[in-house]
């Protein structure tokens, strides 16, 4: 969507902001679902709240005074905050992605100013780190289970698309999006490869689901990323819709 320029339109911005709220729901739920409700959780919250509150100020100071140094102190500061809060979250039985998402939220204003830092982070993330994440997520899928559970996978896909449709589509009409735009919004809100994969891996890592169940869920997530996007781009692309074929399905993150 970013590459088609649609993110610069009002509709695109509303879709992105709604995806953001949707993803926030996911990480918060993952964060609280299996957290141990003990002193570590209290400590995690007691440390996270002031760190999240202070991070934008400290990061801004680093950005103003340390930017352009060869030793990249502002990147190290960010990685320190991500790993430190992530470590505390794991100690509390929660998930490291919860503080990461919240840090992203509080740093959003700063990163709008500092696009060079975003470029560097994206280079590190998509050049080195996320390939290991997504390829590993793929290696855990059992092809034998895809075949034996094909029916369940299709049903899960159907449930996801149906629940998204009956919940999002009426709202797009209430907010007076056009028919075409409403359908486009509904279909794009039906995807979510990155957070679906993170959630499934979370379940696998915590022993909540096994490899076969993981296979079913991730395969349904993959299909839910592909099918609605193809339909949205093919039939409901809002006008003007001069979209080069090679930009279909690309996004802010490598997600759709």
């Amino acid at each position, binding site marked *: 969507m970013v590459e088609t320029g649609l993110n610069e339109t009002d509709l695109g911005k509303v879709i992105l902001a709604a995806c953001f709220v949707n993803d926030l729901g996911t990480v918060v739920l993952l964060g609280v679902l299996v957290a141990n409700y003990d002193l570590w959780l209290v400590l995690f919250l007691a440390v996270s709240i002031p760190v999240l509150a202070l991070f934008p100020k400290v990061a801004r100071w680093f950005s103003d005074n340390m930017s352009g140094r060869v030793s990249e102190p502002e990147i190290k500061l960010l990685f320190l905050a991500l790993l430190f809060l992530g470590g505390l979250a794991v100690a509390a*039985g929660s998930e*490291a992605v919860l503080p990461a*998402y919240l840090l992203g939220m509080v740093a959003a204003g700063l990163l709008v100013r500092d696009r060079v830092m975003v470029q560097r982070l*994206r280079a590190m993330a998509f050049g080195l780190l996320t390939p290991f994440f997504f390829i590993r997520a*793929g*290696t855990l899928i059992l092809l034998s289970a895809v075949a034996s559970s094909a029916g369940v996978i299709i049903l899960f896909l159907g449930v996801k698309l149906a629940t998204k449709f009956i919940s999002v589509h009426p709202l797009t009409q209430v907010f007076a999006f056009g028919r075409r735009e409403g359908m486009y919004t509904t279909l794009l809100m039906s995807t979510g490869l990155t957070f679906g994969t993170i959630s499934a891996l979370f379940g696998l890592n915590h022993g909540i689901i096994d490899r076969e169940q993981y296979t079913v869920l991730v395969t349904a997530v993959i299909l839910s990323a592909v099918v609605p996007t193809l339909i949205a781009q093919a039939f409901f692309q809002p006008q003007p819709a001069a979209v080069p074929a090679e930009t279909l399905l690309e996004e802010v993150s*490598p997600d759709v």
Partner: protein
Amino acid sequence: MPSELDNPQALAAAWMALALLASLISIRLGISVALTEILFGVLAGNVFHLQANEWINFLAGFGSIVLTFLAGAEIEPGVLRRNLSQTMAIGIVAFVAPFVGAMTFALLVVGMRRQRRSQDWRSLPHPWRWSTP
């Protein structure tokens, strides 16, 4: 594979080769690179029995952290404020409805359920089980 090649650099090279190929195919076909990387992972895991080890798990975990951070940082607070009712309403129902729907489906229809009630079910090795659909 010769044992001399059982070193971190050679292993990382194999993973990076998959990642590069996945990028090229995603650009060529115009599909998300996350998708092609997962599919290459499926192929490598099932056909060549590629497995992660401790440092690969760390890189993957750190990848999910930085990716989540970047996703959180994409928000434009101004847009969220200006369209607050629309974005909140669509975002919340788009999260809650599939969550409730998929959970109900998993519990009631497919038969994925918690094995037994326990005060501290988190300590159970597999608190949920998948029974025959």
